[in-house]
């Protein structure tokens, strides 16, 4: 048990594990990204209603899914860091925030670009758009609070609390906003998909590519942060020697 879990507990092993994982993840990422882009942008047929305009779905839907997924992951990491005092979990939580915020921003921008030709307007106060916007504010609040808190130790714990509170509030916000206004088309992915396989498979590939992209960026940021925090330990010197 310990030998397995040490990769998530001890900075040195965590660094080594991410070093081993990175090339594989990059390989799968390139595969899925190139398949998703080529099949989505060239081979998938144009939509019978939206024409070629629908192809922005291959960026929009993965970004929207990742926006939510990253926040959930951060909330799980927050619980782990509060309950078990896992340093790595606190790092995952704090390092994910800018990436998640970027995904949310991308989902908002692509949604707006998609909305202009289809709905005739850049922005509508529709339930889904509004909840994503609020999610963006939750990310901003998390990052703003972190940058305002002076000490490292309290910063991790207090911002973890904010994440958990935000996460509990997400369904409340989601349902209240939905009940307030709805115009958005239904979800693109369901258990009984309403979307043709030739369009669906590239979409799934793009979602995988976005998730892997997140993992890649996170692991690299984690490595940098670990090297910086552990800079006084001998294993960092070994790593630096290997690199140079």
């Amino acid at each position, binding site marked *: 048990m310990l030998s397995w879990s040490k990769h998530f507990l001890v900075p040195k092993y965590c660094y080594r594990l991410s070093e081993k994982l990175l090339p594989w993840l990059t390989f799968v990422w390139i595969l899925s990204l190139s398949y998703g882009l080529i099949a989505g942008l060239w081979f998938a047929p144009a939509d019978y209603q939206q024409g070629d305009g629908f192809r922005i779905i291959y960026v929009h839907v993965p970004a929207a899914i990742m926006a939510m997924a990253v926040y959930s992951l951060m909330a799980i990491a927050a619980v782990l860091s509060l309950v078990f005092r896992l340093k790595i979990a606190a790092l995952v939580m704090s390092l994910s925030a800018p990436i998640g915020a970027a995904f949310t921003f991308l989902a908002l921008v692509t949604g707006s670009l998609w909305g202009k030709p289809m709905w005739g307007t850049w922005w509508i106060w529709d339930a889904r758009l509004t909840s994503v916007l609020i999610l963006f504010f939750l990310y901003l609040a998390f990052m703003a*609070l972190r940058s305002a*808190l002076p000490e490292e130790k309290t910063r991790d*714990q*207090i911002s973890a609390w904010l994440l958990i509170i935000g996460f509990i*509030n997400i369904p409340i916000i989601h349902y209240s906003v939905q*009940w307030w206004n709805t115009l958005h088309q239904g979800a693109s992915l369901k258990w009984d998909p309403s979307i043709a396989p030739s369009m669906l498979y590239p979409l799934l590939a793009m979602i995988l590519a976005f998730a892997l992209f997140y993992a890649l960026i996170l692991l690299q940021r984690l490595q940098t942060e670990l090297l910086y925090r552990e800079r006084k330990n001998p294993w960092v010197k070994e790593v630096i020697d290997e690199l140079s």
Partner: protein
Amino acid sequence: MSHSIFRTLLQHELKSYYRQAAKCLTPLAFYLLVVCLFPFALNAEKTVLQTCAAGIVWIALLLSLLMSFPRLFADDHQEGSLTQYCLQDTMLMPYISAKMLAHAFMHILPCLLLTPILGLLLYLSVRDIEILWLTILLGSPILLLIGSLGAALTLRAGQGSALLALILFPLYIPVLILALNCVTLATAGRPIAGLLAWLCAYACLCIALIPFAIKAILKIGVQ
């Protein structure tokens, strides 16, 4: 034991408000002032103001509450008494409850009393004012609890209301939606009991859970 502690702390809090009357009068004046700005910004026409009135009053209330939250725990933290309360576990919960109850008495209650007058300024009918008043009454525990939570979170940040607004306003959106839909439905002559029940349920959820979160966060904050 904890009952008498609670009573002493509450008396102490109320006394401190009583001695610094400006502490609770300034947010009240702010509340009035924000509402009075809207007729200049929008239009002083009756129909325009009537349709926006409930929203204006709610936004003004949120802003005036926001003004008062940054100092909620900060003063006690500066003088050191908060650290003492955190050291004694039995003291902390009565302290938080007393703090919030005193805040409700000294900030929210005056605002509630002022609300009918604001409604009249914005040409609301008496029945609409009643509904608006009811939504504020039911919504204010949620505002207070979430606001205190934000005050506890930003205790060590020391950045005042801008950061607090960023944290609080996304969390306030559900209350705002529920309350303002109540008013809209009531104006349209439709039943609102269900919505009021939702508002009550949300308030109960907040009352049941948030004090414990505040307690944990304060304990981290004073370390």
